């Protein structure tokens, strides 16, 4: 083990001269610690130096605000440097990794506790397996921070989730160690099986390991994959990381969320089945009655009995064809390494599922104690875990949505809400608190959520499906076939529409206008501000003869005047509104991008150009009168939307061509998201990259007015 110069290992600190000694607990008699000095003698230095100490029960890390000294981690640049570490070195490495992750995330925000929970697993995997030849696939990927640190990206970790920095999820373009891109859940076993089968066909002999969580296990795709894996019998290792946190954030408003669904309780049963244990205790009693010589026989009996009465969950995996090993303590690196080495050495492995039990946020007490386990955080203070949440004058769109839905549900008891394991993200935690029996969390199962809503609608209830725009992609066939084809009045509230900032293209809601507006029976609308959002919630509640949907972005409101008591008023379907009057140029915006149009209008005003800005509100049915009027009264008509091609702009242009208006002198331009994926970054940077900022809108108008250079007046 390479130890950087200047570090000291000491035993029995009772005579230690170090001034920081008082912090050591007195009960531990044998205690040794590695103290790293950065250049020279720092005997006199106090406080500031983070100590990572090994005590009797485990490693203790003092989280101060300073950069933690990580002597062992500093020597690891790639997984190959981990091969010769001893078990104790690996434990020290894990402790240093934890300190590093807490320090890094505290400075920039990101996903904290998921990464902390899998530190030991990541260390064990990289120690035993030879990446990048061996493939490790992380499901969802927000827990891959330790993986990224160990695979050569430690120096760039401070840029994670920022513009031009590391992605917050594994990304194949970023590193060869990232075997598969992730962001949506439950894809790792499918991808792993594909890699395993390809390996077999090409005659190679590397290992494939898929790491999936218990939350991702609630999705059907995981079962489809396991079913196929069992059938094909190809060598594949699946690690089920069970931390009993199925929904996100892993708390309701009142405290930890109880795991959703029958599956989580099945998994919990594997860990401790009281009736089973009763039986086993009795059986043990019997065998001890029989006497010591027969104890071996009794042990055999016990083993077979175990197979027969075994905890109910493991047989599920066995029936699918995966050999089940577990449960295993997911924080005991020695155990993990033993198991992985044994499994790696087996010649004809077939598919194997190793069930490890971890604790989310392990090793960082504030995360362990928090109700939501500090799943996703902004900058925080490492000593206390207190997050520095910026105060904003307005709430987020999500909160306005939840508030107005609650108000609707108070007057109409047929309204129910459905979400897919995203109670916090969709704001339905508030709805659940208010109406606990009318809020349904189905786990990570969007397809089921949609058809479940359709079933509710057939009986006359009014279901609101709150699913992120990009996650609804997973349930698209159900939207078409089960909801739209049968014209069932299901309401879709698509949060995180448009560009989403740090999460990147995997979470970007670029396609929902396109895929919703092409459906024959769907009413498609988008509010331009939070007041309009409330009105649209009321409108959707009122539309009872066909499906409807509305999209709203990530971010905070603009400060519009809210309707009294937060109760929206249904607006007339298929009617937009004109916000400002001008001449020659009309800008027709759809959704929250209207705010950028208004900014552009202000910028053009300073150049003495008055443009008309209109808010279309509805993509389907289009406001025919408004569009015809704008087309007839202006030279130039621009449509702007934060969506991909085939959305609002397409619908407007088809309408105009059908009406014959395009045969005339009108100049029509559509602005939408470019035909490429926009990388993660700050929202403003992303808008600039996409060419939809106020400045870009100005530039387009000016170039159409034959005054292109004047856009340089604005920075």
């Amino acid at each position, binding site marked *: 083990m390479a130890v950087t110069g200047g570090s000291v290992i000491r035993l029995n600190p009772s005579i230690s001269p170090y001034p920081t000694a008082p912090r050591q607990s007195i009960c531990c008699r044998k205690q040794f610690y590695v103290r790293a000095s950065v250049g020279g003698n720092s005997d006199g230095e106090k406080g500031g130096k983070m100590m990572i100490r090994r005590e009797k029960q485990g490693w203790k890390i003092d989280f101060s605000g300073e950069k933690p000294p990580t002597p062992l981690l500093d020597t690891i640049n790639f997984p190959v440097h981990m091969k010769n570490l001893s078990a104790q070195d690996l434990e020290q490495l894990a402790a240093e990794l934890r300190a590093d992750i807490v320090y890094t995330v505290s400075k920039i925000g990101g996903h904290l506790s998921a990464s902390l929970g899998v530190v030991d697993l990541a260390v064990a995997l990289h120690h035993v397996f030879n990446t990048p030849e061996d493939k490790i696939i992380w499901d969802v990927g927000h827990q891959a921070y330790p993986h990224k640190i160990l695979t050569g990206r430690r120096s760039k970790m401070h840029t994670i989730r920022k513009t031009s920095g590391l992605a917050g999820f594994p990304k194949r373009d970023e590193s060869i160690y990232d075997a598969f891109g992730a962001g949506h859940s439950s894809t790792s076993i499918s991808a792993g099986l594909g890699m395993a089968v390809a390996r077999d066909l090409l005659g190679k002999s590397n290992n494939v390991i898929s790491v999936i969580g218990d939350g991702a296990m609630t999705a059907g795709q995981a079962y489809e994959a396991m079913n196929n894996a069992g059938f094909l019998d190809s060598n594949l290792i699946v690690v089920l990381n069970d931390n009993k946190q199925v929904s996100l954030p892993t708390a309701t408003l009142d405290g930890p969320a109880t795991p959703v669904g029958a599956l989580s309780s099945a998994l919990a049963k594997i860990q401790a089945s009281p009736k089973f244990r009763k039986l086993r205790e009795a059986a043990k009693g019997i065998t001890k009655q029989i006497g010591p010589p027969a104890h071996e026989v009794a042990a055999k009996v016990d083993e077979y009995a175990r197979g027969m009465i075994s905890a109910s969950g493991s047989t599920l995996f066995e029936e699918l064809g995966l050999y089940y*090993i*577990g449960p295993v303590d997911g924080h005991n690196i020695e155990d993990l390494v033993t198991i992985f080495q044994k499994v790696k050495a087996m010649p*004809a492995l*077939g598919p194997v599922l190793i069930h490890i039990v971890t604790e989310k946020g392990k090793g960082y007490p504030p995360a362990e104690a928090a109700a939501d386990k500090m799943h996703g955080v902004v900058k925080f203070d490492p000593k206390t875990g207190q997050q520095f949440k910026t105060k904003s004058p307005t709430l987020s769109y999500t909160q306005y949505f939840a508030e107005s839905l609650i108000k609707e549900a108070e007057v109409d008891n047929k309204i129910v809400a459905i979400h897919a394991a995203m109670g916090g993200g969709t704001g339905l935690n508030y709805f659940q608190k208010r109406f606990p029996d009318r809020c349904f969390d189905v786990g990570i199962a969007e397809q089921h959520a949609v058809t479940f809503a359709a079933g509710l609608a057939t009986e006359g209830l009014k279901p609101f499906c709150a699913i992120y725009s990009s996650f609804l992609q997973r349930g698209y066939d159900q939207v078409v076939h089960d909801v739209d084809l049968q014209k069932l009045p299901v309401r879709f509230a698509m949060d995180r529409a448009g560009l989403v900032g740090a999460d990147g293209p995997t979470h970007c809601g670029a396609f929902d206008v396109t895929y919703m507006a092409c459906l024959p029976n769907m009413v498609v609308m988008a509010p331009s501000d939070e007041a309009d959002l409330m009105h649209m919630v009321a409108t959707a509640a009122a539309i009872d003869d066909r499906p409807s949907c509305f999209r709203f972005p990530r971010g905070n409101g603009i400060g519009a005047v809210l309707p009294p008591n937060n109760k929206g008023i249904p607006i007339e379907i298929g009617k937009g509104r004109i916000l400002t009057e001008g001449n020659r140029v009309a800008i027709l915006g759809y959704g929250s991008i209207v705010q950028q149009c208004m900014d552009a209008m202000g910028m053009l005003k300073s150049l003495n150009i008055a443009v008309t800005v209109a808010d279309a509100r509805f993509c389907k049915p289009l406001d025919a009168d408004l569009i015809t009027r704008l087309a007839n009264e202006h030279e130039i008509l621009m449509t702007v939307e934060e969506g991909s091609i085939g959305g609002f702009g397409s619908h407007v242009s088809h309408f105009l061509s059908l009406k014959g208006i395009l045969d005339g002198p009108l100049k029509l331009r559509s602005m939408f998201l470019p035909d490429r994926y926009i990388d993660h970054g700050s929202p403003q940077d992303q808008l600039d990259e996409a060419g939809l900022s106020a400045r870009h809108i100005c530039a387009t108008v000016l170039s159409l007015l034959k005054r292109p250079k004047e856009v340089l007046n604005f920075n």
Partner: protein
Amino acid sequence: MCCSHGVIPRSDPRFSLLPAITAARASTHDPFLRLYVSTRTRTRTGFGSLRARAAVNDGSVAAAPKAVSFYDLLGISETGTLVEIKQAYKQLARKYHPDVSPPGRVDEYTQRFIRVQEAYETLSDPRRREMYDRDMVRGLHLAISARRRFQSDEQMEERSEWKSRWQGQLTELKRRSMNKDDRGNMSWGARMRRQRNGASDEV
């Protein structure tokens, strides 16, 4: 007739610290029960000291001479549903509330009220109820507050149980994988492995 040499008579002094088994139960000659009882004596040494510790620390262990389970306290079966638990609790709370208790028995009723309250809190929360059920197997009737103290010990035992379990599973897997790719196995993976191994043999 089952052998009696392994069974310890009820009057044995080792039983004095155990929660009392009601007369009805002790009189049955159910062999399973006798084993249950003797199992409990064996586990007693492990946990009796913990109970004593808990009692000293917290005093929230159910009174030793008459430790009834929370289920008995509420008067419901061990498989009672939440509705039943709630009903029983409401009934008993109304009965034993200090304000409506007959004068002279206020203290006794208050004690009971507190115990009923405790029972309801433990049993109405599914997680706590599970933990309580587990403890009951071992003959402990603890309120949740006393439990935390030896949760780490319990975890240790659980972990070592897990370890022996997965070690067994690994040996079984090894044994299986020796015979997995025999001629008989026609799965796709087995065929590919045979091909690959066959090819490497030829080289």
